């Protein structure tokens, strides 16, 4: 089966998922992102790489924060950035996803940054571009359903490498709603590919996918056990609509059992770092004392995110 992310030479054509990408590609992206972090410190925070290229942020699902980071990244690469909030426009009028894509292609798009509420939507777009011979247009997945959020996964890996230098002797715990989390899936794929020997997930059984062990993780239901001696704690966001119902009884109970507090964090290694993809629910999945504490690297994640997205975009757009 043709991997739609890679061209016939095995080079990255689109960034759709971290699952199935070889370690060499992941490492190359992280290495490339490194020099981009320096650009933010300059007087002129702009590089000419994507000059004359049009990057379309096509968001079928609203997300101001993610869209903004992609926008900044593209603008720092000198691209023309067009933001389309499709959630409120064409698909509501009965236009199909591929109609929308065809229309944007006619506007000479060079790259689509796609956010969609349905898993796999960016694959459909990439496949459509392939089938219609538009091989020069690139697709970056900015989050699809529960499936993947590859740039978030990459910036998380970049952050871990920044603080921990090496992946090969780490224990990493991912905590919270793994079932509905595209972030968790991208993190698991990247961590296992990059050689982290122990990736743990900690969650109630209602928030874990069936057969999650098959992804190469160790399952814990208890925070005290799961956090023991970990080097990295990656918290997941709990969506409001899942807090009261058949998945969880209440946010209070969730916080009591799975919320990250200083007391629970004390089970981890003293130099453990705490990450969160944002936006945080303080008092639900994370206590403010942890979020604002010395072990949190949540803001550096955001900064690194721009460099990582610049790296991805410039690796895709050239050639």
């Amino acid at each position: 089966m043709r991997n739609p992310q890679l061209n016939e030479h095995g080079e990255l054509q689109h960034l759709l998922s971290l699952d199935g990408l070889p370690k060499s590609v992941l490492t190359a992206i992280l290495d490339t992102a490194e020099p981009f972090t320096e650009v933010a410190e300059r007087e002129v925070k702009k590089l000419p790489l994507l000059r004359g290229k049009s990057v379309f942020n096509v968001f079928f699902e609203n997300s101001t924060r993610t869209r903004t980071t992609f926008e900044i990244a593209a603008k720092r690469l000198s691209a023309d950035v067009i933001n389309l909030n499709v959630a409120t426009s064409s698909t509501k009028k009965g236009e199909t996803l591929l109609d929308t894509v065809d229309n944007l292609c006619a506007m000479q798009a060079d790259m689509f940054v796609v956010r969609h509420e349905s898993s796999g939507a960016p694959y459909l777009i990439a496949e459509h571009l392939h089938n219609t011979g538009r091989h020069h247009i690139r697709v970056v997945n900015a989050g699809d359903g529960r499936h993947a959020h590859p740039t978030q996964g990459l910036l998380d890996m970049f952050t871990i490498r920044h603080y921990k230098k090496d992946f090969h002797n780490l224990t990493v715990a991912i905590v919270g709603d793994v079932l509905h989390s595209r972030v968790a899936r991208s993190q698991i794929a990247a961590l296992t590919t990059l050689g982290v020997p122990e990736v743990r997930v900690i969650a109630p059984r209602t928030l874990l996918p069936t057969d999650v062990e098959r992804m190469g993780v160790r399952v814990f239901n208890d925070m005290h056990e799961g956090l023991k001696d970990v080097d990295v704690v990656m918290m997941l966001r709990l969506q409001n609509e899942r807090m009261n119902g058949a998945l969880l009884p209440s946010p209070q109970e969730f916080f009591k059992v799975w919320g990250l507090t200083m007391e629970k964090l004390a089970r981890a290694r003293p130099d453990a770092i705490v990450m969160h993809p944002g936006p945080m629910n303080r008092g639900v999945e994370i206590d403010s004392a942890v979020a604002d504490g010395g072990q949190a690297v949540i803001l550096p994640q955001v900064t690194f995110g721009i460099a990582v997205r610049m790296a991805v975009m410039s690796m895709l757009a050239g050639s």
Partner: protein
Amino acid sequence: MQLPDAESMLHALVEQMRPNMTADTALVGIHTGGVWLAERLHKALGLTQPLGCIDVSFYRDDYGSKGLHPQPQRSGIPFDVDGTPIVIVDDVLYTGRTTRAALNELFDYGRPSRVDLAVLVDRGGRELPIAARYCAHTLAEPLAADQSLQLERNPSGKLELGLINA
């Protein structure tokens, strides 16, 4: 072809540059050979401004056709560029495109008072109106396009020129 000895060219370059060095002159080496060279020049000239380095990958004009260079390095300009006289250091001057990219990048950090170029070898084949103020050696005959002249650094730190035929 007999290549000139890099170490003796380095000394010649130091002597050319010395008269024009001021207290605030800064060197910026271009990755990778230019940085090795700049490190040696910095020491030999006894400059006080910290050494800068630049990877021009993000400014190359062949990005559109060749894509991003693999493994770009971090640029680092550890001094205030505004008002500073700067010498860009590279091992080999060829088309001038790398120098163009370095100039562009440098100006994104600020406005230097002047910029000069120092190279070990001018191999000819210029495609842009660029000349080196300091140049240790100019090849009598320009090299063919499929030949590549590169500075190498052996484990003891000694610099050597290498010719690669594609």
